[in-house]
């Protein structure tokens, strides 16, 4: 029951924790824009190093962030190869004749089998995956026997640099957003968002109501997860077992999960509305907040630095300044 935690907040007290959530949110946006404006490897690497320093000084465990990248590995590898093959600008850096032949296809089939077969024995799944992918390409270079067709694998400078940029950007986005979620409590993120969006109230945008909805959602996710678990067990006791049933059965069995969850949720909504109203909540009414957000020196420094980086990056991009390489 206690296994679920809302968000990924990890308690700590480094400098990042002390920054006002509004500033953190703004900083995230500013730094992301800055990163996407950079267009040279040198600058990108400098930005990357800056991010790494920021991360290491934040006292967030490194492994947590690495784990955050894992789900992206498949996408990244896929994009990597698409870019490498399709972009053909700049110098030709590397060329290799690749054979699609019976022998190489057979070898690839063997590699796939090996991958799934040995998957459970290694803990370094991602590295293992990448290794297998590399192997699949190596065999295409080495096995021309029983030829079907062939192609030339070419790596151009343009392809490499575009891919490099892409990878850098993705990784920086992940680092920055992880930093935000690891060091800011979900309630603070909601408060920060609500505060930043306040100006929208002028055009009658329901900012406070949205924030309340967000907050209620956060509050109920663990509860809903628990209840889903209980209903799954109750229906399992009636013969519904997602692990052991056929696909077509699974589809109809999902209804036995969805309907009870919906029913519980609707009842909950009604009860909650009554409770909130009885406790004096008025939709659109003025409220004070228990959480305080104070703008301090560190916040000023942080926002100035961010704007500084942004300005630098705009000036470099528009050519007003140039860095001698």
């Amino acid at each position, binding site marked *: 029951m206690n296994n679920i935690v809302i968000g990924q907040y990890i308690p700590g007290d480094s400098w990042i924790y002390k920054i006002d959530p509004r500033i953190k949110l703004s900083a995230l946006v500013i730094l992301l824009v800055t990163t996407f404006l950079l267009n040279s490897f040198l600058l990108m690497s400098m930005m990357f190093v800056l991010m790494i320093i920021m991360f290491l000084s934040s006292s967030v465990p490194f492994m947590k962030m690495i784990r955050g990248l894992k789900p992206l590995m498949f996408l990244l590898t896929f994009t990597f190869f698409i870019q490498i093959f399709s972009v053909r600008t700049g110098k030709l850096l590397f060329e290799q004749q690749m054979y699609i032949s019976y022998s190489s296809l057979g070898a690839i089939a063997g590699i796939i089998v090996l991958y799934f077969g040995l998957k459970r024995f290694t803990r370094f799944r991602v590295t293992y995956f990448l290794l297998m992918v590399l192997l699949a390409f190596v065999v295409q270079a080495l096995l021309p026997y029983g030829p079907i067709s062939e192609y030339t694998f070419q790596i151009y400078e343009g392809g490499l640099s575009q891919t490099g940029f892409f990878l850098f950007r993705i990784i920086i986005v992940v680092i920055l957003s992880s930093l935000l979620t690891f060091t800011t409590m979900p309630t603070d993120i909601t408060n920060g968002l609500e505060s930043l969006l306040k100006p929208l109230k002028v055009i009658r945008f329901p900012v406070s109501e949205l924030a309340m909805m967000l907050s209620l959602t956060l509050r109920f996710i663990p509860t809903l997860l628990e209840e889903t678990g209980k209903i799954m067990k109750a229906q399992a*006791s009636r013969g519904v077992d997602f692990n052991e049933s056929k696909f077509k059965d699974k589809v109809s069995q999902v209804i*036995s999960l969805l309907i009870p969850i919906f029913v519980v949720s609707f009842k909950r909504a009604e009860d909650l509305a009554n409770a909130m109203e009885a406790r004096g909540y008025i939709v659109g009414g003025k409220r004070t907040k228990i959480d305080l957000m104070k703008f301090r020196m560190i916040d000023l420094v942080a926002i100035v630095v961010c704007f500084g980086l942004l300005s630098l990056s705009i000036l470099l991009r528009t050519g007003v300044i140039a860095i001698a390489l």
Partner: protein
Amino acid sequence: MGIQFKQVSYAYRGVKNERYEAILNINLEIKDGEFVAIIGHTGSGKTTLVQHMNALLEPTKGEVQIFNYRLPKKKKEKVGPIRKCVGLVFQFPEYQLFEETVLKDIMFGPKNFGLTNEEAEVKAREAAQLVGLTEEILNKSPFRISGGQMRRVAIAGILAMEPDILVLDEPTRGLDPQGSKEIMALFKELHVNHHKTIVLISHDMNIVSQYASRILVMDSGHVVFDGKRDDLFNHPQFDAFHLARPHAYEQMIHLSQQLNIPFKPVYTKGELLEHLKEVYHE
């Protein structure tokens, strides 16, 4: 064949990867035809224990034997069929109802275990009759009937699968006294007339003592008492179990002390009055 627990423990990991042991070193045997009650405070491990009985959970240590099945199961082994023989009724089982009509909902369980629509309907009607649901309720939506009726529908849904062993997790929770009496009478009938083995989790000492011949007391994941009800209530360490005594038993103690009359273990109002009549029949 019953259910056997051999040195069973169940542990799981919490948020910070710390280890929680819900139950430890459980050794027990539930024989066919028994009526066993399991009592203990919240967190004592009762629910974890009974969820092993229909393979919802598998022991992290030790072995559970349910009829011909052994847990932990081997890879690729299917344990779904256990749930037809061991029917588990959850707390607040009303929450599991979802079908268009009461009848269809009761048929859901049997159909999942391979019965045809016709066969399932027969079993469903039989089960509905057992729990006292009328014909007109069968055609209603399960969401348009009273809470007490919903509970009966949920119980019928398990009974329709014709399990040999019935495990009931606090079946009277949230019911008023009249409703509790009716539900417990049903389980007694199933035990006596239909020879079902019953395992009952309850907080209500009055119910436990009135219906169960064998009582298991759980505390912090261990079984601290396993025996007959008379032995439980005059156990020398009874106070250490932090349990209440049944109303009648409690009053009997008081009266025997105050009025100097012989003590006899009694568990219902009827038994108490009977005994008093005997005592005062000069």
